[in-house]
């Protein structure tokens, strides 16, 4: 009986960034320029800050876009910063970003990369 293998990724962080509807593209571009790969965007409805801003709240769209990106731990700080700058998150009502540690993840990994990794692991163990 053959054992089925799955490739489990570790050192994964999840960046979640909530921005106004229509702004996700800019944030995503910044993340990808900084080395992130794919992303998932979904829609949500924000609540809270508008009540505090009074008439200025007209400038804020309560409809939000939520960007989820899985990033390698080495890059997570860099991407986090680039995204928060691109999203203008230091402005009231613009949204927020947070980083979560992920225990493990699994997805498709190209065969040649798997080979390269196992080769370098073998080399490491030789040293």
């Amino acid at each position, binding site marked *: 009986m053959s054992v089925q293998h799955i490739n489990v990724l570790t050192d994964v962080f999840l960046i979640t960034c909530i921005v106004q509807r*229509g702004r996700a593209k800019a944030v995503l571009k910044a993340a990808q320029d900084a080395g992130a790969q794919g992303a998932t965007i979904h829609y949500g409805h924000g609540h809270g*800050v508008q*009540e*505090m*801003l*009074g*008439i*200025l*709240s*007209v*400038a*804020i769209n309560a409809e939000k876009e939520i960007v989820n990106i899985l990033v390698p*731990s*080495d*890059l997570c*700080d*860099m991407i986090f*910063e680039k995204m928060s700058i691109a999203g*203008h998150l*230091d*402005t*009231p*009502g*613009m949204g927020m970003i947070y980083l979560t540690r992920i225990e493990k993840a699994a997805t498709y990994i190209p065969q040649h990369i798997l080979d*390269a990794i196992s*080769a*370098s692991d073998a*080399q*490491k163990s030789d*040293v």
Partner: protein
Amino acid sequence: MDKPQKIRYGKLIRHISLRQNIISFNDFAHRQLALRQQSRKKKRASLRGIDIYRLLAPYISSRFIAQIKVVLPLAVYLILFQTLVLNQIVSEPVKILLGLAAVVLGLMLFMEGLSKGLMPFGETIGHNLPAKVSLPTVLLVAFLLGIGVTFAEPAIGALQAAGSILKVENAPYLYTLLNDWSTTLVLIVGLGVGLAVVLGTLRLLYNWSLKYFIYGSLAPALGLTAWCMQDAELSKTLGLAWDCGAVTTGPVTVPLVLALGIGIASASGRGVSALSGFGIVTLASLFPIIGVLLLSLFVAASTTPEAIIAAAHAGMHSAASAIPWYAESPMQEVLAGLQAIVPLVVFLMIVLRVLLREKLPTPGIIAYGIILCVLGMIIFSIGLRYGLTALGAQAGSLLSAAFTAVEHVSESPIYPWSIGIGIALIFAFILGFGATVAEPALNALGNTVDTLTNGAFEKKVLIYAVAFGVACGIALGVLKIIFSLKLAYLLMPLYTLALLLTWLSTEEFVNVAWDSAGVTTGPITVPLVLAMGLGLGNAVDAIEGFGILSLASIGPILTVLLTGLWVQYKVHKKHRAMDQQVQGEAA
């Protein structure tokens, strides 16, 4: 292979990236809580100037750019055409430029005000009214709202502006309709829209077919047109009547009326299908035609052309001597803006408070929206007068210089007659195509159609079909003005063809096709095309320059119906081929 690395990549990144200022959320939350307890009443966040700037800059610029994208290409096209093809310098460029800027600014303010101030009313009323009062009351409110939105429609102002270009001797009935009877005219159009909302809502409620409504409203419209054609003076008002249908379905009417209609239909428990909401726009563009035709018959019965000409001349003399301060240009627009929006708001307010007994969720923001609406309307109509109408009229009158001699254009005709006519037609065609492709409402319609037909009728196909129809319609309209063709001879066969195609098509395509005509005629296209037609009409001494818009409405109806039939045929053929394949395999 790689040597094992000594420096971790993450450490390198740490060094070159930003310095993070770390604050504990515990601290932040404690401080905020303490502050809030100190000043119970003041819940507002205090913002620095830079924060307000950062907050408002993208808010304003994105809305500004959205309007620029619509106005700028058209203006650039008109100006380039005028300078490069006709070799004429744009006269009064500063005034026109300022006018165009006012159009962009006004439209931006107006659209934002509409979504913040008026739409919440429409949605609240549409959702809650059917639950609280009986159906006849709901329909009465819908009817009155239809009248109210017509007065608030920015493109209606274009009609009045068009009236001022007209010469009274050429078409006395038309002149009096647009000048002395202008309020009645808008009221009649409003009645038509109101009736359309009522019947459209009933249609949604009882799932009636739109086809019968189209047959039922086109028959009297075509009949009255045939009747008016008999009279030489009356036939000149036909262009106005058929154009009114296109004017009504603008940026105020369509969303507000749809919000109400769909709200009523969904609250009554009928499921909201992809098709609900369609049809009201169609009816709102057909009924006003009948209304205006009847009004012109009434005017013709009550007064004679001679009396109108005499009165207009007398009026001109007295008007030239003393124009009251409130009828002068900027004040007139301010008053018109207030007149358009305030009654609508008061009406909506009364419905909300008296019938619904509900309070507005966010009165401050709604007030802000209404103020923006009024301001936007005022600025837009000032811009309309000095920018769009002036530019369109100029382009129209210069267009004639391409093929005939025009007194104030030296070296005219610029081109030999046949080439000149060709250039004029190509100009009109591209103008129509470009203006339609840029229309944002068409994009939304395209998405609906795409999902409705499971992708068989692609969005791109719809947009190009509509744009091609509008372009052909506008080119045909220019031909009509140049050769003084009788509009009735053009409209009657085209609408008869449309009826035939409607009879052949399925309900979905009928809905989409007839609505596409209303959707295409936005607040930029209508004044521009109207002014161009009138300018051209004056330059070639045509009797009147109306009718282009009506031809631009029938164009997309025909093209979309035809494309729909073609798509249907293709799908049918594909299904048959697949069936045969399946049968062959089974055998």
